[in-house]
């Protein structure tokens, strides 16, 4: 595809329960790390799901764009940004990469910023809310070398009739700004592990026919819905022994931010170096798995 990650940023302050502010802090760290002119960010894609007050109009992306101070008003011949939300739970990052890749490939936009954050809508710490309040951001740009950056992305949803986990709010009731109900089916995580393993096996077979890859060389960057999720998926796929991001102990379930966070940490620790091959694996309710190979530029 030729889409590369130029920089990433995180926002992990545990006392902060604000979806816009987390994404803005992460975005700001990312832009600073990239050292770019932020006016060149032509696309702002927010993939965060759980947001302040359960607001549904406008998208969260314009609030984040505003917080980052990117092309806020228009005057003749001014640079512009387009911002909106892409919603697909733990797999939103992969979808946003696909959308950003298509737009960046047109060369009309120089940079695309993917931001994410999840907080309980009440903006308070709520004991049974499974997601860690945090934010992440990744700045993408186009590379004319198709063998750098993201390669084809494969997305699958299960057909077994169970969505695994559902989140919903009864908006006919008072106080819906502060409510979130999450319902989980029996053995949700077992099913998710096996569904992800099957998808990764198929993806690996497909990539092997197109790319010069060896299983032993791959680093796996995965969603973190439960402790050790990545290793459990690889074990189920019979792909033991590879480096896997295991950040659940450090951050908990970081949901829409998990893939950006896994990449950020792997890059910062030196686990991923130039030319290295990583496999991003998003997995969550639906059941939905979305995965893709990334070749570090």
């Amino acid at each position, binding site marked *: 595809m030729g889409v590369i990650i130029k920089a990433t940023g995180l926002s992990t302050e545990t006392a902060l329960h604000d979806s816009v502010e987390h994404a803005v802090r992460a975005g700001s760290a990312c832009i600073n790390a990239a050292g770019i002119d932020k006016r060149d960010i032509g696309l702002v894609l927010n993939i965060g*799901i759980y947001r302040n*007050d*359960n*607001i*549904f*109009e*406008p*998208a969260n*992306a*314009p*609030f984040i*764009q*505003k917080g980052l101070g*990117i*092309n*806020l*008003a*228009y*005057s*003749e*011949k001014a640079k*512009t*940004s*387009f*911002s*909106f*939300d892409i*919603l*697909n*739970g733990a*797999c939103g990052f992969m979808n946003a990469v*696909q*959308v950003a*890749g*298509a*737009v960046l*490939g*047109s060369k009309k936009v120089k940079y695309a910023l993917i931001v994410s954050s999840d907080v309980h809508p009440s903006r308070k710490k709520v004991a049974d809310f499974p997601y860690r309040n945090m934010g992440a951001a990744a700045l993408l740009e186009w590379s004319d070398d198709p063998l750098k950056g993201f390669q084809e992305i494969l*997305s699958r*949803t299960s*057909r077994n009739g169970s*969505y695994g*986990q*559902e*989140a*919903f*709010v*009864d*908006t*006919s009731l*008072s*106080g*819906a*700004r502060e409510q*979130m109900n999450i319902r989980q089916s029996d053995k949700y995580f077992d099913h998710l592990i096996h569904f992800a393993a099957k998808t990764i096996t198929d993806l690996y077979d497909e990539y092997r026919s197109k790319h010069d890859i060896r299983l032993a060389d791959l680093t796996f960057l995965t969603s973190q819905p439960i402790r050790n999720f990545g290793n459990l998926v690889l074990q189920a796929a019979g792909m033991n022994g590879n480096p896997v991001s295991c950040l659940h102990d450090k951050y908990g379930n970081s949901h829409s931010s998990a893939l950006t966070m896994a990449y950020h940490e792997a890059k910062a620790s030196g686990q991923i170096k130039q030319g290295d091959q990583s496999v991003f694996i998003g997995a*969550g*309710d*639906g059941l*939905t798995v*979305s995965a893709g190979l990334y070749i570090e530029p």
Partner: protein
Amino acid sequence: MKTRIESLGAYLPVKEVSTSELISRMAMEPTFDLEKITGIKKRRVRSENESTYTMAIEAAEDCLSHSTYKPEDIDIIISASITRTKEAQMTYIEPPMSLFIKNHLGAHHAMNFDITNACAGMNTGAYILNNMIKAGTVRRGMVVSGECITPIADTAVREISEPIDDQFASLTVGDSGAAFIMDGCGTDTEGIDFIEFMTTAGYSHMCLAMPSETGAGIAMYTKVQAMHKKDLIHEIPLFIQDVFEKRGTPFDPAGFDYIIPHQVSIGAIKSYMKSVREHFNTELPDTLVVVEDLGNTSSTSHFVVMYTYLKNKQLKKGDRLFILSTASGLNVGLMSMTLGDLEVA
């Protein structure tokens, strides 16, 4: 490679509610003539068993019934509604509405995600598909929105208690569903020339929709006067001018048969068109509106207009359309296209 709208579908609930009927339910009726100011006489309203999901399914199935594609041929389904209700007012946060729709249609090969971008939802979906098809990421896809937006009007009816209230704009909306399939089979005489958008996020707090602050239901709070200030509206012709200049051809209204603006209200549409007319100092093609009979159907509005005028045989193959999006965010979007041979029921 040129994309096109291959097929179009829509769904309008049967029940009609007049503006006078809606106002008669209010504890405090407006001190102004809402029907006169907005031009909205009536709107369609969901029945008790209808939701975002059911209206999206109706529209998607209608679309597929006029398509050469079967559900299994679709590579991507994007749900673009603001609301995401499934049973009554149960709003789904996860999984995405697009997955429920995809499973119902049996579009098992399609990838799916939802987008949210206020009233620019379906046009944002068109922007995404236009880019993804041209990039070769997908061959064809569906954008669908079942917009069950009238609960904000119900809340406004219950809660408005002052002569000036940010919820008055909520009385303009109507329910609907719309869907289209886009593919890469455009030709010299059919298809999408371009889609361009900008978000001037400095104004992102001017229109907010969320659960009510004080009671039950969802509510929308709009700074109507601020949103329609002359300086802000003037960004529309400036953006049009710049987009066309960047493409190397000055904006020529004579190159279009019709303009389809977002269906906010007759007053707002006139004000947009006046700004464009004065900036370019030229007459504009006819503006297509359905807002008098259907209200502001939010994310579906441009495609409900297209559907309605095709159904009445007032739009036909070869017509050149200039589609203008204006939405919370604030978003301004432009789409230039030539209609193909679209059938609607």
